[in-house]
């Protein structure tokens, strides 16, 4: 807890001069610890002079922030309209089977590559024009 408190303190200090610093702070915490848990909420609340309920309300509103860390690699697969039109749904069963418990598949609604789906994202790396074999490779390579 000690070192975590210190790290979050540093993150908050980095953003002290920004207007509306909450989201930038939460993004950094999520990136550092893989989650924004109850302890983190409390520290942020104290630093920004808010109630924990208020911070929790913000954290729980956004899809990017998670209450607990999941250490598995994550493959985000777009399942919005344009990727559906290009057949992503027919790839999902096999993808799920391949991912098993090792890889977490999560749904994202649009990666902005809608003319070239099905598309996926791993970290900041994007993959487009995926067929069953291509998606399988993305899942297998996910670390």
């Amino acid at each position, binding site marked *: 807890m000690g070192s975590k408190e210190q790290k979050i303190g540093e993150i908050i200090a980095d953003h002290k001069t920004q207007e*509306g610093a909450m*989201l930038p702070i939460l993004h950094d915490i999520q990136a550092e610890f893989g989650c924004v848990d109850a302890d983190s909420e409390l520290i942020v609340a104290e630093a920004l002079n808010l109630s924990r309920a208020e911070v929790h309300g913000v954290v729980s509103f*956004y899809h990017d922030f998670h209450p607990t860390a999941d250490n598995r690699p994550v493959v985000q697969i777009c399942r919005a309209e344009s990727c559906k039109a290009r057949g992503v749904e027919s790839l999902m069963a096999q993808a799920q089977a391949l991912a098993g418990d090792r890889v977490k598949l999560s749904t994202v609604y649009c990666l902005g590559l809608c003319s070239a789906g099905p598309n996926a994202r791993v970290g900041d790396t994007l993959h487009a024009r995926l067929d069953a074999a291509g998606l399988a490779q993305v899942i297998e390579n996910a670390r």
Partner: protein
Amino acid sequence: MIIRISDDALARALGADAIAAAFAKKGHEVQRTSSWGMHWLEPLVEVDGKGFGPATLADVDAILDGSSAKAIGVIADHPFIAGQERLTFRRAGRTRPTSLEDYEATGGWAGLRRARQIGSEAIVEEVLQSGLRGRGGAGFPAGIKWRTVMQAVAPQKYIVCNADEGDSGTFADRMLMEGDPYALIEGLAIAGEAVGANQGYIYCRSEYPDAIAKLNEALRLCRDIIAPFRCEVRMGAGAYVCGEETSLLNSLEGRRGEVRAKPPLPALEGLFGRPTVVNNVLTLAAVPHILSEGGAAAYDGLGMGRSKGTMPIQLAGNIKHGGLYEAAFGITLDDLINTIGGGTESGRPVKAVQVGGPLGAYLHPDQFDIRFDYEEYTKADALIGHGGITVFDDTADMGAMARFAMEFCAAESCGKCTPCRIGSTRGVELIDRIRAGGRQRDRLELTPQMHNARKDGGRGQDQEIALLTDLCETMKFGSLCALGGFTPYPVMSALQHWPEDFTGPPEQPAARVLDTSNA
């Protein structure tokens, strides 16, 4: 030889970095440019103005010795490019995105320089005269918004760029931010000059890491040029509704992205309660051109009716020639999909087209003579929105797409109002029941203790469809913002044009008919 390859996210997602490295390794100078927007040809390699695509590592040698079968000739003469009227995207494919040298050499900063000379009132007058309307969805005249903020008296005002681009089938904001970031920044700075704001924020969705990186680099490099105007990029956190302007402002302030009731208008009480211009990326990026000498009149001269200038249209989904097509308003869907887009990529017949993202209606091929114009679309109960067009072939299940519209609304609702928060979930259930043939009374309802519960055979498909129609009316008229208010459009248009996708093929209705035997 100088080899030019785009570093747009789409090209990179298709392996452009490795191809660029392969050319570099062979001793050639590689320039990373913006994308021309011909997505089916990405990664597109350019040598002396001639294109080769879609390129793979295996094509590198053949491209260098001129024997590649992937040659498409002079890129600028390609019909897909030559047929466009590129204003907002005039640098697409032609410049290196964060090169100040390239930007200046192609007329960059001329609009800002001129804006600073003519001053606040004259800038607003020119934007009004150009007829520019908001490209984020609602199509509100940009000049009127700017005038309101200009006339407001406050110690601090803001320019906020809406770069949340959450609509499926759209990518023009992303391409602009990645390919020509200075054009957007110049637009923001001109808006600041017009209304008297010295701080800008670009709220970009977290799904666009490349765009965020490019913007940050560009902002660092042009800090002194735009000063005293300052600008910062803020990253969203995966909420579609944060594209709605008041939700976006709450998010920027560090709150839950709940939609605010209007009034007060953001133009008067926006970010931190201060007068704020909120404009889409494409709206702001159109401004430098409009503010250049004679730009406003030229812009007003394009388009039809009250839809002036050009629209960067995005061709997506199951389409052969997908990508970015900027054209003057007035172009028909048939031209866009069949002539320019080449029909479906699968080669099968087009079944449906969704224009305007997840909240836009599904249009039937019978309606393809509709012309791209805000008012014509409104008349057809449809939406231009952000200009995205998603094509579906005849394998699409429109009942499933209608269900998805409700599911998406349920997943992304901000929760502020009942028709959207609850109606969307009930909508998913209703569509499931319609597709299952209707609804039977459950055991609890049939118990004698449930005096008021009807003991009939439940509801048939027709009755469930009537309920769905009623629910859609309630969402349409009872929702605070367009997420709840427009979700009925894709649902009802799908039901109207493709009822068989909800009720099953007419030749075998028995399989889906409600079994009432145990009622």
